[in-house]
């Protein structure tokens, strides 16, 4: 997917100015948060489960090659093919080759963020193969001229009922419907034909289980089952970090994933798919392929950002992020929005291609406290800021400003003088009022709010004066 993260600030401001989007964000806000808060109460030991999940993910990431080899061997024993893709271009090439080998003209897709990373739909179309998104949210976006998703689990969360009603009326040429069940039925009617006619199904994978060579899929609409069982060919595309050792580990992670994501105790559908259809079986694919994708992940292993690889893609961090909740996901400019995206985008798409993202956070740590696998997101964002500073990537004015400020702060007398001048200036600017309407040195602050006036003298001045007066009094 083309990266537009360098336009974050302009994108964010456009989001704020978009009245329809702001209304949709307000409507969606808090629903996942409230439901998650209720759902985690069902667990006797939520914190202990988080620790266990973190340990499982760390165990894998620490020996990723070993677990991948084990998965590959087991998957091959079940009749699956395992292929490795270095980057998105290789994903596109492999999928196209597999499709051609099996004479495929249409591919039904269950949600896959990696196919977004790879820009797979465009590649398939260019190869004359029709991709059909079957997750309702993804379908809405696909028929809306391939709009990118704005959330990793609720891709069309930025759209309202009205938006979808208008869109379906336009693209399906049907009478405009305003009830959600009617709109859903309309999409199902369209998709049913595709489910029946597609020769290949393509899915992501929430987890790969090394001990059984299985892929685990967490879905809510049932489309995942249609995509993975009806066509002759099933292709799973997933990142190399998604492997876990055992089914037991899967059960631990599944206690956290749906609860953290949508606030469900368990998703409506949960599938563990193993191998190809056996001679005595009625459903399942005749051909099963796993495409395991690196796309920057291997470089993160063993480095200072390795904790990010624990991520199980629940979306809790963005659901709880004040910035994401205010501007929506598109502003982040790539596949993954919110706090996890602000870490992943620089790591996978290049630190120089996403300069603003690590700074697009208040470091409130609401993301860190809800992350089911305890990824210290604010700390990783801060480390990325450090990388930018080390690499001389920050704007010159900011670099000089910070250096100068730190230099002065190391010199208490000079600092005291500067603060004394500053305190007077920040009182004078307010004039008679209590607030400064335009702050010349920081106009960015006063674009959307006032800056309160200072008291006019610094604490240290007033404290020194008080001590002096007390000393004089004592002498008398």
């Amino acid at each position, binding site marked *: 997917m083309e990266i537009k993260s360098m336009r974050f600030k302009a994108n*964010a*401001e456009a989001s704020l100015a978009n009245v329809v989007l702001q209304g949709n964000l307000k409507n969606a806000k808090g629903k996942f948060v409230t439901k998650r808060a209720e759902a985690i109460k069902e667990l006797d030991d939520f914190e202990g489960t988080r620790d266990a999940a973190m340990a499982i993910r760390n165990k894998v990431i620490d020996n990723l090659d070993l677990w991948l080899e084990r998965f590959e061997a087991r998957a091959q024993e079940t009749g699956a093919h395992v292929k490795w893709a270095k980057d998105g271009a290789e994903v596109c090439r492999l999928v196209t080759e597999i499709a051609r080998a099996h004479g495929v003209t249409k591919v039904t897709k269950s949600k896959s963020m990696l196919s977004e990373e790879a820009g797979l739909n465009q590649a398939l179309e260019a190869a004359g193969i029709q991709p059909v998104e079957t997750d309702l949210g993804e379908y809405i976006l696909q028929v809306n001229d391939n709009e990118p998703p704005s959330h990793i689990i609720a891709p069309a969360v930025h759209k309202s009922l009205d938006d979808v009603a208008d869109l379906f009326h336009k693209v399906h040429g049907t009478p405009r419907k305003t009830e959600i069940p009617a709109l859903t039925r309309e999409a199902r009617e369209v998709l049913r034909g595709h489910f029946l006619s597609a020769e290949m199904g393509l899915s992501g994978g929430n987890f790969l289980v090394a001990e059984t060579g299985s892929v685990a899929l967490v879905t809510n609409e049932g489309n995942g089952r249609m995509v993975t069982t009806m066509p002759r060919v099933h292709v799973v595309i997933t990142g190399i970090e998604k492997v876990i050792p055992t089914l037991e580990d899967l059960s631990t992670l599944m206690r956290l994933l749906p609860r953290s994501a949508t606030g469900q105790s368990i998703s409506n559908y949960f599938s563990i798919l193993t191998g190809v259809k056996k001679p005595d079986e009625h459903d399942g694919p005749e051909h099963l392929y796993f495409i395991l994708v690196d796309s920057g992940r291997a470089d993160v292993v063993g480095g200072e950002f390795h904790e990010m690889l624990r991520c199980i893609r629940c979306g809790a961090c963005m659901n709880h992020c*004040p*910035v994401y909740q*205010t*501007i929506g996901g598109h502003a982040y400019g790539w596949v993954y929005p919110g706090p996890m995206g602000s870490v992943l985008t620089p790591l996978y798409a290049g630190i120089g291609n996403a300069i*603003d993202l690590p*700074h*697009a*956070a*208040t*470091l*409130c*740590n*609401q993301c*860190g*406290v809800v992350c089911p696998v305890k990824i210290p997101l604010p700390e990783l964002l*801060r480390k*990325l*800021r*450090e*990388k*930018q*500073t*080390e690499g001389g990537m*920050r704007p010159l004015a*900011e670099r000089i400003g*910070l*250096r100068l*400020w*730190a230099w002065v*702060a*190391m010199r*208490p007398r000079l*600092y005291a003088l500067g*603060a004394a001048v*500053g*305190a007077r200036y*920040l009182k004078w600017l307010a004039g008679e009022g*209590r*607030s400064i309407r335009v702050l010349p040195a*920081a*106009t*960015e*602050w006063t*674009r*959307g*709010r*006032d*800056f*309160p006036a*200072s*008291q006019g*003298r*610094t*604490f*240290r001045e*007033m*404290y*020194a004066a008080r001590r002096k007066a007390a000393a004089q009094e004592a002498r008398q």
Partner: protein
Amino acid sequence: MAKKTRVGLFVTCLVDLMRPRIGFAALKLLETAGCEVVVPEAQTCCGQPAWNSGDRNGAEALAKKTIAEFEAFDYVVVPSGSCGDHIRNEYQSMFVDEPGWRDRATAMAARTFELTDFLANVLKVDGVPGDYEGTVTYHDSCSGLRGMGIKAQPRALLATMKGVELKEMNGCEECCGFGGTFSVKFGEVSAAIAERKCDFIHASGARAVVGGDLGCLLNIEGKLRRMGDDNTRVLHVAEVLAGDA
């Protein structure tokens, strides 16, 4: 006579520059509770802005300066969850390659407290010098809440004041959008987040919003005034507790 507890008061750079009365309120609260309070003259900033901006060198220099100035006290008390969190939690992780400084940071961390935490849990005061009449709502600032566990302490202290009626707002634990340099890098986003906080404050019906971090309070006050609200008071918890509000 028992030796008085010696407290080093870290005033914070924002209080020094913008609201000295918060520093004096903290001083009064600590002295009333029986502490000998020292305000080291050479203190400037804990270095958090540098650390959070990715300037490790500046952050380390200011951390060492602050440790050297404050480590001799029995306790270090800070009227800010944000600066307190930085001194107590971040200093230790900063010096991974300098064991000497890491040990000094760790030793000081154990004796570093946010003001209301210190009053409620270390000194265990059963009353405060101030009085205040009116309804207040409490904003839990992020670093204080999630970094230092400040939640019950200010409420317990406010509850000892007869005239204070606490009206909790929805979303009291949500970020106000300040975020240090975030507020001047992405001013409009920051102000939009602040607006939501102000809506929560208004919905609570309280006449004043109280918090423990001046950064958040400047952000909230600035947004309230821009929204045309000149009436809701924005107060640091120390001002209320000390009776200086």
